[in-house]
Structure formats: structure tokens, C-alpha cells
């Protein structure tokens, strides 16, 4: 019943008391899903933290080996379901490299817009939950209000709000209509004011500062060593952004800045993400202007092979498996040349890399997905050491992890 208790009883023999173990998760409101952390506490200070993952493991990499290339795009939606458009893009980029296809310019611009929309909606959700974890309740609802707007635009674009599957190998599925462009313009006009609203709520709030300043400080060297990417790495002052370093889609056409932090603490990471919101907004604006130049162009590459085009797919009739439902027993369609390709993008949470090996068959031979959340969760023990439980909540928040992304 009393806990500190067993502790003194089963000390490690050196007279030093064992620590109090607490199990945080997998169903805990602030672990953002099903993350489980086994904590060893000394009072409220964390001595050791052991993250246990796999509660949302669906075996995407294994499944992909049994599905054709287009079908894996649907799987990619379920990884980081907050920003599924970014995952789509990463998958498609890898497959396009394998095939040697370049999507038309209009498609690339649209992809860039969609990617930045996903970034904004992901960052908004991050801000909402991060603020809620620290206890600021109102920011949560403000962010969700604006995210709702973006999701409704997504719905107009592709009919889905979360799992878009909008991006295809060789382009995108549907063109933007004028209505969507107008709506996006309205959004980009109004959004900077909204960012200002959030910042007035928490930017100079003393409690917010106290809770985030000097919490989970990572210097640049350690951050790279820990494999941290995205806003977390940039918060530590490393200006590594895949959009700048290895530009994909239309990122070489647009101007934007890569904001970096100085101290590498939780507050800096917050500031970096807030600045990124503005940059994303700016990128969308530029892309909308550029869309006018390519009015009426196709959004899907002509050389996109038959297999990869949804409208022209000639799948054989599915034959029901006696036990497991439907499986495709189609003849092999040798479309994708054998080889390997590696593509990485700057997803909202960090660097999302896809490494695909093909054997010339209709299915990928091996599909490896390097997700930012996985790496970030692996860094939690390093960051959490010496902090308190309340800080751990802030740390999980600042790393911006999604467990679907981590477990795959």
C-alpha cells in the first residue's frame, strides 16, 4: 500500500533505497496515444525512463511487401495521421525515384501547398496539446478552431479530412479548383493574425516561461548524435532542413527562412515551430501565386505507368481467401524496375525517410520507413533524466510524437 516503502525494504543492499517505479501509459492522457514509459522516480525526479513502444504496431513494412505500390500509399496515411499528406509525398517521391518519373510543375506546386498545409495543421495540433499538457486550456480550443478550417479545405481538395491519400506517384489525384484556391487565400490572409493570438496568450506568460525555459536542453552536437531532426534539431541551433538541403517538389522555387533556436530548450523549440507556421503560410502564398502560371496543366505525369494510375488500374478480380477475406492473386505486373531508392522529406515532425528496394515485381521488396517520432521517442530517456514528472509531460509535448508514426 505505501510505496516508498517496498523501496526501503528491497533496497539494493548498499543501504541506498531503490527508486519508486511508476508506469506512465499506455493509456495516459498526456502520452499522446499509446506510449508507455516506465519511470523510476526519486521523489518526483526521474532517475531512469524506459519507453516501451509497439502498442500500435501494425507491421506496415511487412504489409507493404504484400501490397502493390499504390496500395502502400494508403498505408502511409496511417503513419503520422496528423499530417498524412506529408507521408504520401515521402512515399511517392521514393517510388518516383525508382521509376524515374518527374511530376509536372503544377502537381509539384500543389504538393508543396498540401505539404505546408499538413505542416500547419500538425503544428497547430502540437501547440494545442503541448499547451494543454502544460495546463493552458484555452489555446487548445483556439488551435482546434483553426485546424478545423484547414481540415475542411482538405476535405474540399480530396474528400477526406485526415487520411488523404491525395498524392499519387507521378503527381496528385485531383486538380485544385478555384474555390479551394480562394479559400486558401482567405486562410493565408487571416492566419498570421491567429498566430499572433496564440502568442499573446502564452508567449510572455510567466508560468509558460517557467515551465518551458531550460527544460530538456539539448546542444547541437548531442541533438545530431541523438538523431533528432525537424524543429527539435533546429531548436538547438542546427539549420538542417531537408527542404533546403535536398529540395524536393517545388521547394527550390519558393523563398523561405529556416528559423533556429539558440539555447535548445523547450521554449526555443516552441518559438521555432511558431516561426515555422509563419514560413509555411508564406510558402503557401507564393505557391498560390505560381499556380496561376501553370493554369490548366495536367497534375499527373503522362509516363506514370498503368499500374500506378488509379483510373487506369486493371486489377484482376479479387478472389476470396477461405479464411482471411480478400487477397489479390493477380498476375505479376513487371512495371517498376529493380533497384533501390531513398527519399526523405521534411515532415512536420522531422525528417521522414523512405528507403525502398524493388525486385521488379508489383510489390516493393522491402520498404523501410524512418519516422521522426520513432527517433524522438528514443531520445526521451536522454532528455528526461533529472527532470520532474511534470517536465516529462512537457518533453513529450515538445518532441511532438505521434505513436502511429513511431510504431508503424
Amino acid at each position, binding site marked *: 500500500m505505501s510505496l516508498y516503502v517496498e523501496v526501503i525494504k528491497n533496497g539494493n543492499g548498499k543501504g541506498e533505497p531503490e527508486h519508486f517505479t511508476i508506469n506512465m501509459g499506455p493509456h495516459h492522457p498526456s502520452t499522446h496515444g499509446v506510449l508507455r514509459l516506465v519511470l523510476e522516480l526519486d521523489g518526483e525526479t526521474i532517475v531512469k525512463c524506459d519507453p516501451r513502444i509497439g502498442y500500435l504496431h501494425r507491421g506496415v513494412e511487412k504489409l507493404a511487401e504484400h501490397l502493390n505500390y499504390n496500395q502502400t500509399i494508403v498505408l502511409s496515411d496511417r503513419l503520422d495521421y496528423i499530417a498524412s499528406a506529408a507521408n504520401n509525398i515521402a512515399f511517392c517521391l521514393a517510388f518516383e525515384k525508382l521509376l524515374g518519373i518527374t511530376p509536372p510543375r503544377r502537381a509539384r506546386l500543389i504538393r508543396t501547398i498540401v505539404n505546408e498545409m499538413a505542416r500547419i495543421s500538425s503544428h497547430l495540433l502540437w501547440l494545442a496539446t503541448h499547451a*494543454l499538457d502544460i*495546463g493552458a*486550456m484555452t489555446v487548445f480550443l483556439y488551435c482546434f478552431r483553426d485546424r478545423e478550417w484547414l481540415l475542411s479545405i482538405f476535405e474540399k481538395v480530396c474528400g477526406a479530412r485526415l487520411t488523404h491519400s491525395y498524392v499519387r506517384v507521378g503527381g496528385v489525384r485531383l486538380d485544385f479548383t478555384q474555390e479551394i484556391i480562394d479559400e486558401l487565400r482567405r486562410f493565408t490572409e487571416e492566419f498570421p493574425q491567429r498566430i499572433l493570438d496564440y502568442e499573446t496568450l502564452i508567449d510572455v506568460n510567466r508560468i509558460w516561461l517557467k515551465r518551458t525555459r531550460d527544460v530538456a536542453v539539448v546542444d547541437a552536437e548531442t541533438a545530431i548524435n541523438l538523431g533528432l531532426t525537424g524543429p527539435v534539431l533546429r531548436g538547438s541551433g542546427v539549420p538542417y532542413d531537408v527542404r533546403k538541403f535536398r529540395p524536393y517538389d517545388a521547394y527550390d522555387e519558393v523563398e523561405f527562412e529556416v528559423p533556429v533556436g539558440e539555447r535548445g530548450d523547450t521554449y526555443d523549440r516552441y518559438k521555432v515551430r511558431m516561426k515555422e507556421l509563419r514560413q509555411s503560410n508564406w510558402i503557401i502564398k507564393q505557391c498560390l501565386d505560381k499556380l496561376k502560371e501553370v493554369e490548366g496543366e495536367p497534375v499527373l505525369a503522362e509516363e506514370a505507368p498503368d499500374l500506378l494510375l488509379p483510373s487506369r488500374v486493371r486489377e484482376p478480380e479479387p478472389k476470396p481467401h477461405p479464411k482471411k477475406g480478400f487477397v489479390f492473386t493477380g498476375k505479376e505486373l513487371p512495371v517498376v524496375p529493380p533497384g533501390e531508392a531513398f527519399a526523405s522529406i521534411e515532415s512536420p515532425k522531422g525528417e521522414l525517410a523512405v528507403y525502398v528496394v524493388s525486385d521488379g515485381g508489383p510489390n516493393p521488396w522491402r520498404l523501410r520507413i524512418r519516422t521522426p517520432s520513432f527517433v524522438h521517442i528514443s531520445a526521451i530517456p536522454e532528455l528526461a533524466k533529472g527532470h520532474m514528472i511534470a517536465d516529462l509531460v512537457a518533453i513529450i509535448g515538445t518532441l511532438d510524437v505521434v505513436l502511429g508514426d513511431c510504431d508503424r
Partner: protein
Amino acid sequence: MSDIIAQIPYPLLVFIVAFILLNLTLLHVAYLTYAERKIIARMQQRLGPNRVGPRGLLQPIADVLKLLQKEDIIPNNVDKSVFKIAPLISLVCAGTGVSLIPLWEKFVLSNLNVGLLFILALSSLSAYGVILSGWASNSRYALLGGLRSSAQVISYEIAMSLALLSVVLMAGSFNLQDIVKAQVASPFKVYLIPQVVAFFVFMVCALAETNRVPFDLPEAETELVAGYFVEYSGIRFALFYLAEYFGMVVMSALAVTCFLGGYAGPFEVPGLPFIWFLLKLYVLLFFYIWVRATLPRYRYDQLMGLGWKVLIPLALANLFVTAFLKLYL
């Protein structure tokens, strides 16, 4: 009117008055939850409860009915007697304070000589509800919540008592009725003006005592799930909830009495004796709700730091200055 009252035997009279007071407070508490949900909803650009009754006005009643119907779950391996009694301790300690507050010149249920001390005593007892529920639940999260809360309540009580002592010094009495009278007689009419530091300290401590944002660490949803009452459900959970809001009402009423001139107002409103008291009370309650919608939560060590390093020295300094002025002016 007074003739009729005089004819009622004294114990019966006390009972009747207590009954009225209790119901009034319960009504306030019930609609405080409604007001909180509505006001926060407004601040967050939502609607809030609007389904039960016109504009959701019957929502608190529906909530109570729902919680009453719920199964009373008592987990295995809990200390049953303590587990059952803990919410009652919380509620009684939080609620009894109402009987000491002078709502009006001629309406105070129990005019104790040491009314202020008695309220402080009750609020220090209310820590037991939290500690015991945390211990009896046989859950680590609950125990952590209980430990946090007891440490918090004990340390903030000191600052709160010191803040109230300066008021006592100025009024020269522990009796709440006398404090109000002394305030009205003083040149400022309210103690808020000379004792603004004490008022500040008191309000912060009151937030901490009632476990409200930004000091809601014992029940910090995102860290300890729900803290000390994580294992409670149904009506016992509701009792804790009720205790929190009772605490808010009592603390606000105490602040009104000690700092804002109690029932006294700039002019008499015929037929509505409590109007000034209630108005001031509502303003303070609104403040509570407002704070909840705005501020993030403190961390545990920061909270303790604030209590011991800022509030207690501040209250002490204020007490010394007050005593000095009282002696030599």
C-alpha cells in the same frame, strides 16, 4: 415579522436558518459549475452546455442525477472505510465555513468570536480528505496526488493565515462580523486599499487551497491523470467535485468579508439585503473562472518555491508594516 421569529424555539430557528443557508449554497455551487462551463466556453469560442433545459440551465441537475445513478465502484485492495469517508471529510470541511460568513448585518448563522480562525481550521482539515483518499485508493498516482496536495495545502495555509492576520490586526478582532463593521468604520471603507498586498496573497493562496488552476497539481490531469480521486466514481467523485466548488464559494466569501467590505455597499437596496455581498462574491468567482481559462499550470517545485519564497515573506513583511503602522500611527 420579528414577533414570529421570536416565538420559534431557538434550536428550531437555527435548524431552519441552517437549512436555508445550506440550500442556498448548494444552489450557488450547482450553478457555479454551470457558470464555469458557460463562461469558459465563451472565452474559448464554444457554446458550452445548451441541451438540457433552456440554454442548458438544467445541466447541473442532470449531472447530479446522472452521477447518483452511477455504480459506486470500490476497487479491490482499498481501505474501504477510509475510502468511503474521505470524500465526506472533504465536503464537510469545505462546506461548513459558510455558516460563519456574515451574509448580512442581521444574518449570520454562527457568530463566533474566532470565526476567522475557525474557517482556517476547517480549511486545514480539508487536507485530510485529499490525503486519505490518496492513501486509501491503493494507487500510485493517487498517492502522489495526495502527497502533493497535502504539502501544498499546508504550505499555502501559512501564507494565507499571515495575510488574514494583517486584516485581524487592522480590525482588532477575529469575529467576521466585527471585521466588516471595522472596515465600514475605517476611512477607506474596504480593507482592499490599505491591505492590497494581503489581498493579493490571499487570492493566490485561495487558488492553491482550492486546488484550482494554476495550482491544480494534485489533480493535474496531464501528469497524474486525476490525482487523488483517480479511483473514485459515481457520487463519491461528485462529492469531491462539490467540495472543490464549495471551497471556491467559501474562499471568495471570506475574501469579500475580509477585504471587500462584506455586505456593506455604497447605498442600501431596499428589499434585497444580500445584493452587495452576492455581487462581490460573483465578481470574485468570475475571477476564479477567468484564471482557469487563461493560465497554464505550475510545476510542483515552482509552486512550493512561490509559496515559501514569495508569498510567505510578502505576507510577513505586510504583517510587520501593518503592525508598525497600527502601533505608531
